[in-house]
C-alpha cells in the first residue's frame, strides 16, 4: 500500500510540476463547463436565417413570411430561386423556402424547403422550427375553410329540419288524396244505372198486349197507345242517357283509377324523399363533433417532457459529463502510462522488487483522483452558475461517475501500454474517444445506424454511460433500479482489467528490451 501511495504521490508531483499539464487538468474541464454552460443554458435556437423566394407573392405567402419573421428567424426575400438555393449552399442562410407563384388555398402548389443536409445536427431543428411556423398558418386556413363547411352543414340541417314537416304534410295529403280518390272510384263503381226496363220492345209488346185486350174490349186504345208511345220515347231517351252516363262513369272511373295510381306513386316518392331527408337530418344530427378545431386537428398532440428540466444544458449535461470524463480519462491515463513507459526511470522501476500490479493500481488511482478533482470543480461550477439542483443528484451519480471513469481510465491505460510513443498514444486516445463519440447518440441518433452495427454500438461504453447517467440525473431513477446497466458496466471493468494486465505483461518489458535491442543494433552499425 505504501508503494501505491508513493506512486500516486510521485505521479501528482510530476503532473503538478508540469505547468501545462496542471493547467489542463484543473482548468480544462472548468473552462469547458463554463463555456458550455453559458452557451447551452437555454432552450432557444438563435439566429436561424431563412431565404424566401416566390415568382409572385400573395397575401398567403406574405403572411407566412411575416409569421416566420419573428425574433427567432431572420427572413430575407431573394430575387431568384437559384440565388435562394445557393445562399443555403454558401451557408448564408439555413433554409430556402420557395413559395409557388400566386399561392392561395385554391392553387395546388406546394411550398418547397431547400436545406443543407450536411448540417445534419441542425437541419432537423431548423426544418421543425420553420415547419411549425408554416403549419400554424396552414392550420389557420384549414380552420377557416372547415368553418365554412361546418356552417353550411348546420344551415342545411336547419333547412332540412324545416322542410321535413312540409314533406310530411305533403305525404300525408297525398295519402289522403289517394284515399279520397279510392272512395270516389268506389262510389262511382257502386252507381247502378241498370233498369228493369231493359228493352223498349217490352213496352211495345206490353202495348200490343194491352192494345189487343183493348181491342177485344172495344175500348179506346189510341189515347193509351199515344201515352205508351210517349212513354216509350221517354224511356228510350232515358235509356240512352243512362247508357251515356254509364259510359261517362266508366271513363271517369278509369281516370280516377289512373289518378289514384299517380297519387299513390307520388305518395311513395314523397315518402322516399322524406325518408332520405330524415336520414340526412339523422346523419347530420349524428355528427357529434362540430367544433372546427377538433375537425381540423381531430387528434391533438402535446409533447410533455418526462423531466422538469427545461434548458439544453439539462439535457446535454449527462452526455457532456460522460464526454469530459471519457476524453479526460482516456487521454490522461494514456499520457501518464506512456510517459512512465518512456521515462528513463522506468528501467529502474522495473528492476525494483515492485510488481507491475502495484504500478497499475498506482496509475489507476492517480487517474481516478484527478478525475474526481476535475468532477468536483466541474460540479461546483455547474452548481454555482447554472443548475443549482445538479448537486442533489450527486449522491447517486458519484458512484456511477467513478465506475464510468474507471472504464475509460482502463481504456486509456491499455492504449498507453500498447503504443510506443507519446504522439501515437495521444492519437490513439483521440481516435478511440472519437469513435465512441461518433457512434453514440450525441452526434447522430444511434437508430440511424444499420441494425447489425447498432447491435454492436449499443454496447459502446459512451452510450451505456450516458444512458445510465441520464436515467439518474434527469429522470432521478434510483441506482438500485439500474442493476442490469450496472452489471454491464461492471463486466466492462472486469474485461478491461484483464485486457490491461495482458497488454501490460505483453508490452512493458518487451518495450524496454526492444529499446535496448534497437540501441544495440545502432552500436553494431
Amino acid at each position, binding site marked *: 500500500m*505504501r508503494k501505491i501511495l508513493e506512486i500516486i504521490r510521485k505521479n501528482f*508531483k*510530476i503532473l503538478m510540476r508540469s505547468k501545462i499539464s496542471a493547467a489542463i487538468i484543473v482548468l480544462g474541464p472548468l473552462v469547458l463547463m463554463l463555456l458550455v454552460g453559458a452557451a447551452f443554458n437555454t432552450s432557444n435556437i438563435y439566429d436561424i436565417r431563412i431565404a424566401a423566394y416566390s415568382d409572385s407573392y400573395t397575401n398567403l405567402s406574405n403572411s407566412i413570411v411575416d409569421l416566420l419573421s419573428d425574433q427567432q428567424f431572420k427572413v430575407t426575400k431573394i430575387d431568384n430561386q437559384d440565388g435562394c438555393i445557393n445562399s443555403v449552399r454558401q451557408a448564408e442562410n439555413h433554409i430556402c423556402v420557395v413559395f409557388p407563384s400566386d399561392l392561395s388555398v385554391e392553387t395546388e402548389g406546394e411550398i418547397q424547403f431547400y436545406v443543407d443536409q450536411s448540417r445534419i445536427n441542425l437541419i432537423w431543428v431548423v426544418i421543425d422550427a420553420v415547419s411549425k411556423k408554416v403549419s400554424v398558418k396552414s392550420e389557420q386556413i384549414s380552420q377557416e375553410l372547415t368553418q365554412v363547411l361546418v356552417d353550411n352543414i348546420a344551415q342545411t340541417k336547419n333547412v332540412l329540419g324545416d322542410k321535413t314537416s312540409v314533406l310530411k304534410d305533403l305525404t300525408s295529403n297525398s295519402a289522403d288524396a289517394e284515399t279520397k280518390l279510392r272512395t270516389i272510384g268506389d262510389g262511382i263503381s257502386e252507381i247502378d244505372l241498370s233498369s228493369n226496363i231493359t228493352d223498349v220492345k217490352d213496352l211495345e209488346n206490353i202495348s200490343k198486349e194491352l192494345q189487343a185486350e183493348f181491342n177485344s174490349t172495344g175500348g179506346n186504345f189510341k189515347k193509351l197507345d199515344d201515352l205508351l208511345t210517349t212513354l216509350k220515347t221517354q224511356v228510350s231517351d232515358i235509356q240512352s242517357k243512362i247508357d251515356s252516363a254509364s259510359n261517362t262513369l266508366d271513363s271517369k272511373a278509369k281516370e280516377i283509377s289512373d289518378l289514384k295510381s299517380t297519387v299513390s306513386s307520388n305518395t311513395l316518392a314523397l315518402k322516399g324523399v322524406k325518408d332520405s331527408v330524415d336520414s340526412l337530418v339523422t346523419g347530420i344530427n349524428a355528427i357529434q363533433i362540430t367544433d372546427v378545431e377538433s375537425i381540423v386537428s381531430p387528434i391533438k398532440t402535446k409533447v410533455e417532457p418526462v423531466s422538469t428540466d427545461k434548458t439544453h444544458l439539462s439535457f446535454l449535461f449527462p452526455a457532456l459529463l460522460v464526454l469530459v470524463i471519457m476524453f479526460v480519462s482516456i487521454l490522461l491515463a494514456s499520457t501518464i502510462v506512456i510517459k512512465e513507459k518512456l521515462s528513463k526511470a*522506468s*528501467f529502474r522501476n522495473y528492476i525494483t522488487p515492485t510488481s507491475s500490479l502495484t504500478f497499475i493500481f498506482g496509475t489507476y488511482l492517480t487517474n481516478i483522483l484527478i478525475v474526481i478533482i476535475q468532477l468536483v470543480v466541474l460540479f461546483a461550477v455547474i452548481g454555482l452558475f447554472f443548475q443549482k439542483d445538479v448537486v442533489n443528484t450527486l449522491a447517486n451519480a458519484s458512484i456511477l461517475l467513478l465506475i464510468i471513469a474507471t472504464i475509460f481510465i482502463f481504456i486509456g491505460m491499455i492504449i498507453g501500454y500498447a503504443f510506443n510513443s507519446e504522439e501515437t498514444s495521444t492519437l490513439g486516445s483521440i481516435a478511440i474517444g472519437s469513435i465512441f463519440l461518433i457512434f453514440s447518440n450525441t452526434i447522430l441518433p444511434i437508430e440511424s445506424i444499420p441494425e447489425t452495427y447498432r447491435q454492436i454500438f449499443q454496447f459502446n461504453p459512451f452510450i451505456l454511460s450516458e444512458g445510465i447517467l441520464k436515467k439518474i440525473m434527469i429522470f432521478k431513477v434510483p441506482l438500485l433500479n439500474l442493476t442490469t446497466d450496472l452489471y454491464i458496466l461492471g463486466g466492462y471493468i472486469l474485461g478491461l482489467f484483464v485486457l490491461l494486465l495482458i497488454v501490460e505483461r505483453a508490452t512493458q518489458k518487451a518495450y524496454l528490451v526492444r529499446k*535496448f*535491442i534497437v540501441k*544495440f*543494433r545502432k552500436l553494431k552499425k
Partner: protein
Amino acid sequence: MKTPLIEIKKVTKIFGRNTVLNDVDLNIPQNKIFGIIGESGSGKTTLLKSIIGFVKPDSGIITFEGREVSRSMETIRERFGFASQENCFYPKLNVRENLEFFGTLYGLSSKLIDSNIKKLLKFVELEDAEKTLAENLSSGMQRRLDIACSLINNPKVLIMDEPTQDLDPVLRKEIVNLIRKINENGTAVILTSHLLFEAEVLCDEIAILHQGKVLEVGTPEQLKNMYSKNQEIHFETSPGRYDLIIKQLSDEKSIERVEHKGNKVILYTPKAEIVLKKLLIVISKMGEELIDVDLRKPSLNEVFESLVSKK
C-alpha cells in the same frame, strides 16, 4: 579459493541474427571492482542486463551467490543496484523525492529511507541540492544522483554501465573517486567501460569482451604482463632534432616502434634499460638539452589492441 559472487557459465544471447554473447564464462569475485571492457556493441550491457535478469540468456546459467538468477529475481532485485548509461530518475522530482520514491519501491521503511538518504547525500555530495529538481542539476550531479538512486537499497552489488560516459575529465574523475568510495564501503562493483585507461586505474579485475566473447580475464597487471613485453621511453629534448636522434639509435634492434606524440617521442622496446642508456649518450653527444625522460610500462590499451588484433 573464495566462492565467486557471480558465476556466468556458457551464456549465449542472440538478438535476431546477432550473437551478442557467445558462450561467455566468467567468475566475478566478491567485494571487488570488476570491469568489463570492450568496444561499443561488444555485448557489455547485454552481459550486465543478463546478470540482473532483465535479459534472459538463450543458453547458459548465471548464478548469484550460488543461486540461479532467473529463479531468484526477488533476491536479485533487492540486493542489486543498477546504474545504467542513461540517468534513471524522474527529472520533475527533486533529489530527495527521487531517493524516497525508489527507496519505497525497494520496500524500505521510512526510517531506513531517511537514514539512507542522509548518508547517500553526504556520500555523493548532494546535500546542498537535496531540494533541487533533478532536471536542474548539472550533468555531474545528475550522474551522482543516479548512482545514489542505485545505492538507496544498500545493494551488495552495484552494476554500472559506462558510468563515466559523456562526462568531462573533471566529472569523470569525480565519479571514479565515488566508485572507489562505494567499493571501500563493501559494495562489489561491476562496471563496463570502453575507456581502457579508466578501467585500468579503477578495476581490481578486468574481463575483455570482444564480439560477445570473453577474450581474457585478470588484474590489469596480469593482462599487461601477459600481452605486452614492451616498455615505453617517453622523452623530450631541445631543440628537438628527433630524426637525428632516432638515426643514431638505428643500430639498436630492440626498438620495435617509434611514435611522435606532441613535443615528445615514445620508443617501444623490451630492453628499456639498455636503450635508455644509449639514448642518453646520443642526446649528450648531439648537444641536445634533455627536458624530460620517462620510463613507462605498457597501457591496457596496448593489451586490448594486441588481443583484439589476434582475433
